[in-house]
C-alpha cells in the first residue's frame, strides 16, 4: 500500500478522493493553478503544489516526485483518460490509480471502442467508425446509418461537440460545427456517427477489475436526465428494465467489454437503452464517474478505496452473486448555470452557500468560492439514499429545497422541478426529458421582490435618529418606491414602514435579520428565505425558487448610462469571433459577436435592423458580463 498520493485534479472530485485517501492513512498531495489559489481543494489536502495547468502532465509528475508521492490519482476529467499521462506516471516509478494506458487508448477512441466491442460480441448500434473522415465518406455513411443520427467526436467526452441530426440537409452544418468544437476541445476532429435512439435511456454499469484477471460489476446506474448531453440526475438501480433477464444481459455485455481490454480498476460501461429495455454499447469510461456515489450508496462500497487497493495490486475479494444493491440512491448535480438561457454557465462569487444536511454532499465549494468560467461549473453533488425510488426522490427533493446557493445562477429550481414531475416519479424518463417537458415560468419573483425589498430596507443603517421609523412622514404623499430588474422585466415595489411591520406591495411583512436562519413572514405565512447582496444585485432564495433581482439605482449620472443601442456581454467569457465592423448594415437576429465560456458558444445578435456604430469587442479578449461589445444605430 502506498503512503502518499498526489491527486491531479481540482474541486469536488479532488476533495472526494482526498477524503478516502486520508481515511486510509495516506498522505494527500494536491495541485492548484494560480487562479485556484486558496480554493478549498488546495486546502483540504496535507500539502498542495502550484502548477500552471491541470493539463500539464510533466509538471504534475514532477510535483509528485518532489513531494514523495507514491501514486497519482487523476480524478475525473483533465488527464484522467490520457494514456500518455498514465504512462508518464508509471515511468516515473509511481503507482497509477487507473487502468492501463492500453485500455485507456482503446476506449478513448469512440471509433476503436466500437470496433473492439463488436469483436467481443457486445451489442452496438448501427454506425460509422471508419478512419476515413472525408466529408463525402461521412455524408455517405450518414445516409447508410439513417436519421436521426448522432455525431460524436471520436476523442470526446462530456457531451462536447455532440449533435443530433434529424435530416440529411442538417447534416453538413452540424458536422462542421461539431468538428470545430472537437478540434478546439480535444485537438482531434474525427467523428463517429451512430444511429440516434429517440427516447433512449442512458444506463451504465460500474465494473471493477483487478490485476489478477478478476472482474466484477457493481450493478447499473441510470443517468437519463441530461441537458446538453450531460447528466444532471443519476440513480441506482434503474427502473428501465421490464425483465431481470435484460438486466443480466446488460451485465454480461459490461463484463465482456471490460474483459476485452483487460480492464483494471474502476470503470464504467455505458449503454443506450430503448423503450423495450434493449441495450447497446455506447462507450466505456476508463475512470471514476462523477455519479459514482449512487453506486457507493447502494453497494456500501467506497470506489476510490477500491481504485487505490487495485492499483496497489490487491486482488478483488468479491463474490459477484453476493454483490447486491440495497435500496435506491439518487444524485442531483448542482451546476452554476442558467437553465432558462440554454444552460449557459454562470460565473461569479458563490457569496452564500448552505448545503443541506442529512444527505451526502460532495462539493468543492464553500461560501465565498469563486466560480470561474475557466472550469466546470459543477458546484456540488447531492446524494440521497432510501428504501425505494420514491423515498430517495423525496429525500433528494427535500435536500434541494433546503440547499442555499446564491451569488451565481444555479439549476437548483430545474432539479427540484424534475424531481417533482409526475413523469419522473413514474419512471418514464429518457435523455430527451428536458426537451419534451417545459418548465413553467418561475413563481419565485413576487416573493423574491418582497424579500429583497424587506432585506434592503431593514439592512439600511439607522439615520441620525435611530428611534424614528425610516421614511417618517407627517403628510405622506406616497410609499417608498424601489425598482428591481428581473430578467428583462422591471418590477416596481412599494414599501411602507409601519414600525412593527412593513407593508410591501400590499403584503404585511415581518423579517428579523438578527435571527438565523433568516425567515420572512408574509401575510401570516412564515418560511425560510435567503438574501445575498452584491452591489445592486440581490440574489434571493424563496420557497418557490431562486431569483436574481437587480436593484435599479435611484440616480444614474448621465455619463454612466450605457449608450442607447449598446449590446453587452450576456456572460463573462472569451470573445471567439467578431463578425461585424463599424458601418456594417445588419439585420435583426444577425450574429454579431460570439463569446465562449466553458467551451459553450454564445451569440450576441442584433435586436433590430440597423448600422454598427461602434465595436468594442476584440477576438481573443476576455470580457466580464455586462461589458459593452457593440453599439448599434437604427
Amino acid at each position, binding site marked *: 500500500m502506498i503512503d502518499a498520493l498526489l491527486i491531479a485534479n481540482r474541486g469536488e472530485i479532488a476533495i472526494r478522493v482526498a477524503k478516502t485517501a486520508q481515511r486510509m492513512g495516506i498522505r494527500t498531495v494536491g495541485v492548484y493553478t494560480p487562479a485556484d489559489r486558496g480554493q478549498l481543494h488546495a486546502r483540504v489536502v496535507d500539502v498542495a503544489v502550484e502548477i500552471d495547468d491541470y493539463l500539464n502532465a510533466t509538471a504534475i509528475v514532477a510535483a509528485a516526485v518532489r513531494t514523495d508521492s507514491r501514486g497519482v490519482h487523476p480524478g475525473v476529467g483533465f488527464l484522467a483518460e490520457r494514456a500518455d499521462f498514465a504512462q508518464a506516471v508509471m515511468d516515473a516509478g509511481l503507482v497509477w490509480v487507473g487502468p492501463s494506458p492500453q485500455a485507456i487508448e482503446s476506449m478513448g477512441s469512440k471509433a476503436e471502442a466500437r470496433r473492439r466491442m463488436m469483436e467481443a460480441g457486445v451489442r452496438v448500434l448501427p454506425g460509422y467508425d471508419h478512419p476515413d473522415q472525408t466529408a463525402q465518406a461521412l455524408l455517405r455513411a450518414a445516409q447508410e446509418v439513417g436519421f436521426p443520427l448522432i455525431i460524436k467526436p471520436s476523442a470526446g467526452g462530456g457531451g462536447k461537440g455532440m449533435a443530433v441530426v434529424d435530416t440529411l440537409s442538417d447534416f453538413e452544418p452540424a458536422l462542421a460545427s461539431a468538428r470545430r468544437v472537437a478540434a478546439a476541445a480535444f485537438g482531434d476532429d474525427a467523428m463517429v456517427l451512430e444511429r440516434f435512439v429517440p427516447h433512449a435511456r442512458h444506463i451504465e454499469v460500474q465494473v471493477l477489475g483487478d490485476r489478477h484477471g478478476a472482474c466484477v460489476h457493481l450493478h447499473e446506474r441510470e443517468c437519463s436526465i441530461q441537458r446538453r448531453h450531460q447528466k444532471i440526475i443519476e440513480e441506482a438501480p434503474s427502473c428501465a428494465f421490464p425483465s431481470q433477464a435484460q438486466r443480466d444481459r446488460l451485465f454480461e455485455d459490461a463484463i465482456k467489454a471490460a474483459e476485452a481490454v483487460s480492464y483494471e480498476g474502476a470503470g464504467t460501461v455505458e449503454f443506450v437503452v430503448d423503450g423495450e429495455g434493449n441495450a447497446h454499447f455506447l462507450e466505456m469510461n476508463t475512470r471514476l464517474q462523477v455519479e459514482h456515489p449512487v453506486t457507493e450508496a447502494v453497494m456500501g462500497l467506497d470506489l476510490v478505496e477500491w481504485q487505490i487497493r487495485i492499483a496497489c495490486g490487491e486482488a478483488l475479494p468479491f463474490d459477484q452473486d453476493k454483490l447486491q444493491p440495497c435500496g435506491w440512491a439518487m444524485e442531483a448535480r448542482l451546476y452554476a448555470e442558467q437553465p432558462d438561457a440554454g444552460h449557459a454557465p454562470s460565473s461569479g462569487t458563490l457569496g452564500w452557500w448552505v448545503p443541506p444536511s442529512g444527505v451526502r454532499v460532495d462539493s468543492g465549494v464553500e461560501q465565498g468560492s469563486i466560480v470561474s468560467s475557466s472550469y466546470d461549473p459543477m458546484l456540488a453533488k447531492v446524494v440521497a439514499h432510501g428504501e425505494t425510488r420514491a423515498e430517495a426522490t423525496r429525500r433528494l427533493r427535500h435536500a434541494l429545497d433546503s440547499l442555499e446557493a446564491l451569488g451565481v445562477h444555479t439549476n437548483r429550481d430545474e432539479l427540484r422541478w424534475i424531481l417533482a414531475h409526475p413523469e419522473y416519479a413514474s419512471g418514464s424518463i429518457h435523455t430527451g426529458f428536458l426537451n419534451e417537458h417545459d418548465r413553467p415560468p418561475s413563481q419565485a419573483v413576487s416573493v423574491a421582490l418582497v424579500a429583497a425589498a424587506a432585506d434592503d430596507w431593514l439592512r439600511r443603517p439607522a439615520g*441620525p435618529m*435611530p*428611534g424614528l421609523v425610516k*421614511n*417618517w*412622514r407627517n*403628510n405622506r404623499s*406616497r410609499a417608498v418606491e424601489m425598482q428591481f430588474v428581473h430578467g428583462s422585466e422591471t418590477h416596481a415595489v412599494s414599501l411602507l414602514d409601519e414600525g412593527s411591520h412593513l407593508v410591501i406591495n400590499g403584503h404585511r411583512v415581518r423579517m428579523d435579520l438578527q435571527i438565523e436562519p433568516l425567515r420572512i413572514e408574509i401575510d401570516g405565512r412564515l418560511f425560510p428565505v435567503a438574501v445575498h447582496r452584491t452591489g445592486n444585485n440581490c440574489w434571493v432564495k424563496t420557497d418557490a425558487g431562486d431569483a436574481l433581482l437587480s436593484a435599479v439605482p435611484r440616480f444614474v449620472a448621465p455619463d454612466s448610462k450605457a449608450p442607447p443601442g449598446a449590446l453587452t456581454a450576456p456572460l463573462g467569457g472569451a470573445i471567439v469571433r467578431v463578425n461585424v465592423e463599424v458601418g456594417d448594415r445588419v439585420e435583426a437576429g444577425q450574429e454579431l459577436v460570439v463569446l465562449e465560456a466553458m467551451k459553450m458558444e454564445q451569440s450576441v445578435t442584433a435586436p433590430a435592423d440597423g448600422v454598427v456604430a461602434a465595436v468594442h469587442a476584440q477576438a481573443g479578449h476576455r470580457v466580464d458580463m455586462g461589458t459593452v461589445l457593440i453599439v448599434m444605430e437604427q
Partner: protein
Amino acid sequence: MNRLPTNVDPNSAVFRDNAEAMQAALEQLDRDLERARAGGGEKYRKRHLDRGKLLPRERVERLLDDDGWFLELCPLAAMELDGRAPGAGVIGGVGVVEGVEVMITASEATLQGGAIHEYGVKKSQRLSEIALQNRLPVLSLIESAGADLPNQADIFVPGGRGFRDLTERSKAHIPTICMVFGSSTAGGAYLPGMSDYTVMVKDAAQVFLAGPPLVKMATGEIADEEALGGAEMHARISGLADYLAEDEMDALRIGREIVRSIGWEKQGLGPEAGTIDPPAYDPAELHGLVSRDPKVPFPAREVIARVTDGSRFHEFKPLYGPTLVTGYARIHGFKVGIIANDGVLFGPSAEKGAQFIALCNQRHIPIVFLQNITGFMVGTAVEQAGITRAGAKMINAVSNSTVPHVTIMTGMSYGAGNYAMCGRAYGPRFLFAWPNHRIAVMGSEQLTGVLDIIKRSSAAKRGVAVNEEELAMMKMVLGTKVERESHARYATARLWDDGIIDPASTRDVIGIALSAAHSAPVQGTNSWGVFRH
C-alpha cells in the same frame, strides 16, 4: 430617572368617547392634508405631468433620502382664506438629504403656476426663519409664475425680505442650493441669483428679470425665451447657472451631490449614544386621554409619559406650584427640559417656570413646552399675592432664554398663558398643535359673559332696559365668531403654528424638531431682563 405611572384605562367609556372625538378630528386633518397634497387639482396636475414634469411633491420625495424623515411644515397655511387651497403654494419642511438635515422648499407648480400670494410669502418667511435659526442648509425647488399679480399690493413690499434672507443665510455660512425646474422670473430670478449653488434643468428652466412680453413693452426688442433666460444660456453664457441638468432627475441628483460635497456638520451635541427606548405606554393612547370637551382638563404627566423615552421623567419641584409640571427627560435620546400645564397658572407655578427655564439655560438643555392653559388665575387674592409680577418673571425668562424651544399646543391656549408658555410670539424654534387645540385671548364663554356684564352695566348706567333679544343675538354672534376663530384649523391656516399633528406622533415630531435645532449650537444664557422680585 423614574418611569411615570399611568391611570389611563383604554377600556373605559370616557376613553372611548374621547378617542372617538379625536378620531373625527384626525379624519378632518387627513381630509385637509389630502387637499394640500392635491395641489392645483386633477386638471392642473395632469397638465403638469403631460409636460413630462415631476409633480412638486414627487420632486421633494425623490430629492429626499428615502430612508430619512420629512416633517412637512405649515401644510395647511392659507386654508380657506379667501378661497385659497391649503399649503399656500409652497411645500416646505425639514428632511434628510444625503444624511444631512435640510430645509426643503418647493413651488407647488400645479397651483396657479406656483404663483406667490401673501400667505405664500408668510410661509416662505417662516421656513426661512427656521432654516436660519437652526442652521439648516436650504434646498429650494423652483418653478413659479412669480408674484400673484392681481394681489401684488399684498406681497410686493414684504416679499422683498426673502432675498435678503438668502444672503443673510449665506453670510452665516448656511448654504442654499437652488434647483430651477421651470419659470423663475422677475423678482423670482433673484432666487437662483442669490443662492450659493444653482442647478437649472435643460430646456425647462427660464430665469430672467423680464420675459419676452415685458421686454417688448420696455424696449421693443423681440426676444427668444431660451436666449433670454434658458438653462443652457445661463450655464454657458451668463454664469447664473452653476450646473446644467439633463432633466429633472438629474437636477435632483446634482442637488444631492452638492449636499454631499459640502460635508455639512451639525454644531449641536446630538442625542445620547446607545439604545433609545420608546415610551413604556402607547402614544396612541393620547387619543383617548384628550377630553372631547375642551373644558375638561387632562393630566399633564399622562402626556409626558407618552412623549419621553421609556416614559421616564425626573420632575423638578413637584410639590411647589403644582399646576405647572417641570422636569427633565429624554426624547429620541435628546436631553430636554419639559414644562407642562396641569391647571391654571398661579404665582408659584409661574415662578417655578422661570426658575426652571434659567436652569435649562444654565445646562444648555432645550425646552419642550406642553401648552394646555386657560390663563393665569384671577382674583383679588392672587393679584395681591403678585401674580402679575410672577407671570412677568416667567415671560421674561421665556423671552430671553436662548436654548431651543419647542412648543406643542395640546389643548387650550388662552390669554397670557400663551405667552408664558412660549406661544408663537415668543419665537419657539418649532410650534405644533394637536387637532383639539383652541387659541384665543380668552374662552368664548368668558368672552360673551364679559360682554353681557359690560352691556348690562352700561344699560344700567344709562337707566335703560336691556334689549334681551338683541343682547342674546350679539352674544351668539360673538360666541360663534370666537369659537370659529379659536379653532386649530383657523389658527394653522394663519401660520400661528407650524402645523397640526396627530398627538400620537408628538414624540417623533419633537425628536425631529430637536434634531434640527441641534444643527445649530445649543447655547443657554445667563442674561435676562430685569426681574421684579
